């Protein structure tokens, strides 16, 4: 059931990525000051935006998990944050490349956006270690969700605090597209959409893979018993417990 729609989504993503690439290289005009390097903008900014939204999304999914206690919401929250972390690393790398190219430094402190992004990244970098350090899967998912909600709320708050701290604001985040020249704005919007699609597709892939693996394990354990499949090693990733299944069989058989 997890695999459903995956193909359509993948195709849409590939198409959108292709379109975005085409626009970036053949349609969007060359920026006067920075030249070709500016093209990284269409990668860097969508990555950053999607990563941040992904973090917040992870928090929202975690709220759902805390409310319903269903393992699948924790799984979704985990996947969203996991993907966002990867996107965040990509943002930091592309941003650094851009910074080196246009300012001559790999890192500058005067950009509040960069710094607050770094803080958010540092916070989320503890997500996996936190999960890994808790062995009991239930407690792991509960604690991870508490973390995800807290950190999700922290993302916007932190941006506000950091922005306030710096008098001048260099990159005009999000609102800035309005002052872009038309073709650039269009290219940017398409790139952003493609990036969001990519995020969704990758999440879905990971979810499907995890779910399939869990089902295979459950089947194997049911067929061969404990000896057939050794207990799952401790891991930071959530496990989809065969809770519902075993509960069903338990009540079914009676006593």
């Amino acid at each position, binding site marked *: 059931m997890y695999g459903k729609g995956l193909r359509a989504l993948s195709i849409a993503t590939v198409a959108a990525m292709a379109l975005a690439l085409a626009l970036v290289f053949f349609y969007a005009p060359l920026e006067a000051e920075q030249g070709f390097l500016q093209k990284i903008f269409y990668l860097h900014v969508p990555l950053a935006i999607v990563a941040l939204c992904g973090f917040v999304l992870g928090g929202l999914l975690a709220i759902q998990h805390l409310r319903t206690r269903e393992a699948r919401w924790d799984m979704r929250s985990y996947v969203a944050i996991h993907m966002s972390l990867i996107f965040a690393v990509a943002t930091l790398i592309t941003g650094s490349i851009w910074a080196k190219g246009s300012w001559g430094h790999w890192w500058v402190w005067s950009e509040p956006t960069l710094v607050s992004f770094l803080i958010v990244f540092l916070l989320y970098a503890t997500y996996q270690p936190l999960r890994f350090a808790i062995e009991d899967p239930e407690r792991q998912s509960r604690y991870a969700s508490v973390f995800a909600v807290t950190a999700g709320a922290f993302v916007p708050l932190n941006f506000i605090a950091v922005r306030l701290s710096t008098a001048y604001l260099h990159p005009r985040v999000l609102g800035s597209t309005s002052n872009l020249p038309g073709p650039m704005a269009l290219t940017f919007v398409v790139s952003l959409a493609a990036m969001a699609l990519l995020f969704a597709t990758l999440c879905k892939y990971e979810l499907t893979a995890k779910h399939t693996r869990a089902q295979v394990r459950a089947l194997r354990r049911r067929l061969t018993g404990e000896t057939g499949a050794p207990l799952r090693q401790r891991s930071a990733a959530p*496990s989809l*417990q065969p*809770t519902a299944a*075993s*509960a069903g069989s*338990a*009540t079914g058989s*009676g*006593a």
Partner: protein
Amino acid sequence: MAALEVEGLARHYGEREALSDVSLSLEAARTLVVFGPNGAGKTTLLRVLATLLRPHAGAVRVLGSSLPDDAWAVRGRIGLLAHEPLLYRELTARENLRFHARLHDVAEERVEEVLEAVAISARASEPLRNLSRGMVQRVAVARAVLHDPELLLLDEPYANLDPAAIELVEPLIGAASGRTRVVCSHDPGGGLAEADLVLGLRAGRTVLLRDAAAVQPGEIAELYR
């Protein structure tokens, strides 16, 4: 209505099943004794009944409230004596009990009363870490009965107690206390003697559930084979 009603209870830790499909029902003021080899799931069962662990499947009703949803309603009517004393080692016996008395809204006099009952009054002003193991166990007994619970959950309650102490705590946690009790035991003879109902667990599954009067000692020995 039964004090304890469990139907198809299951609980696992990760992929390890600690309890599966356990069903039982216990009338008020009676004693259920749980036997089973090490790792059978006795402690897990007790912790589920004590509202400290959520059941993963099945219906559990304790003193008329179903867990985990109405757990708040039965806390305070349950007394748990676990493997660990659930006390602060840095505090004295009296301080520990006073803390619990406040949490349970019990009068302070009751603290002195139970301290007296487990014969630890003379040492009640020393941090627990300076007491011997058996003395700490006595304080743990005092804690478990401090709020006069209706249901007692006892995990090998007599471990580390000397014979005199066992007699001493009898009116508090023994059959004579008149409370509903669930006792985990490794002592086939003693356990059977105080039981009304016997539950035998093996690897988390029920292998014996019968009125104590109908249980042969050999059947309990059989459990450990």
